């Protein structure tokens, strides 16, 4: 692709290095936040444009990856405001307290299988993705950064502009939410358990 005269001469080299070194990380993060490929690509584009725009101000105080996570997170929040996504609401701990014996017994049928084997199960994989996508975005971001991208609470806090404590609080609620979603769907086709064992009682099933 020929470089248009409007782009500074050093653009392509600097951009290509940034892009080459971090495209997989940014796309993976974007896909986890957006839940599907096309929105993720939009977010990647926005992230790299903003990153290049701010490159001259980047002083190297943070790792490049943390800086890109921050840019992508902000871009995602802006994009999401324009789209219909999961409703924004606060998750309270009270809503995750099981109210019946049956709810305690609900669990993900993981016994005897590795997580990799479990995630080969299309239904479980889709259930997990849907559960994460249903999270209000500020909780989803904490879950993705900590449990999926593997950042520490301090790093996730730097990305989100929050204290470690606030990150941990959001992460905890996000985990409880996803657990409840997976359980409530009754991953009941597992051969080890009957459907009765998995169904939440309040559904009347």
């Amino acid at each position, binding site marked *: 692709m020929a470089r248009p005269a409007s782009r500074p001469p050093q653009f392509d080299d600097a951009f290509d290095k940034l892009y080459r070194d971090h495209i*997989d990380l940014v796309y993976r993060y974007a896909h986890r936040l957006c839940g599907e490929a096309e929105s993720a690509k939009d977010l990647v584009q926005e992230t790299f444009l903003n990153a290049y725009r701010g490159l001259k101000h980047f002083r190297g105080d943070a790792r490049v990856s943390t800086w890109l996570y921050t840019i992508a997170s902000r871009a995602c929040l802006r994009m999401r405001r324009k789209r219909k996504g999961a409703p924004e609401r606060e998750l309270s701990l009270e809503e995750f307290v099981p109210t019946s014996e049956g709810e*305690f017994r609900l*669990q993900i049928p993981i016994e005897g299988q590795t997580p990799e084997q479990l995630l080969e199960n299309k239904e479980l994989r889709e259930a997990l*993705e849907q559960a994460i996508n249903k999270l209000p975005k500020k909780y989803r971001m904490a879950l993705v950064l900590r449990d999926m991208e593997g950042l520490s609470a301090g790093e996730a806090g730097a990305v989100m502009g929050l204290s470690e404590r606030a990150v941990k609080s959001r*992460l*905890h609620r996000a*985990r409880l939410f996803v657990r409840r979603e997976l359980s409530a769907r009754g991953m009941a086709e597992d051969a080890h358990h009957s459907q009765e064992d998995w169904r939440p009682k309040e559904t009347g099933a």
Partner: protein
Amino acid sequence: MSRKKPAPREISSTKSHRHEPGARRCIDILRQLSAYIDDELPEDICAELRRHVGACPNCEVFIASLRDTVTLCRQHHPPPLSTYERARLRQGILRAWKPETHS
């Protein structure tokens, strides 16, 4: 429920409890669970919670399912970009660059 004034972050060592909706005792335990599975609790509180969990099958099942949820999240990877998509995306970004609006 039976404790009048629970200290912050403390978990009662009573052997069993009822899991009533919104019960203070349940919230106290629920609040600690991520820190518990992330191994971030002080040893004394962790030991106390472990004792409780050992005596309460409901809590044991609940914690196992929360731990499994975290494991699944950690192992879940979106499909990677193909070489073609990576190149196409790069071209799209370069085309979208407008210096007059990105100064």
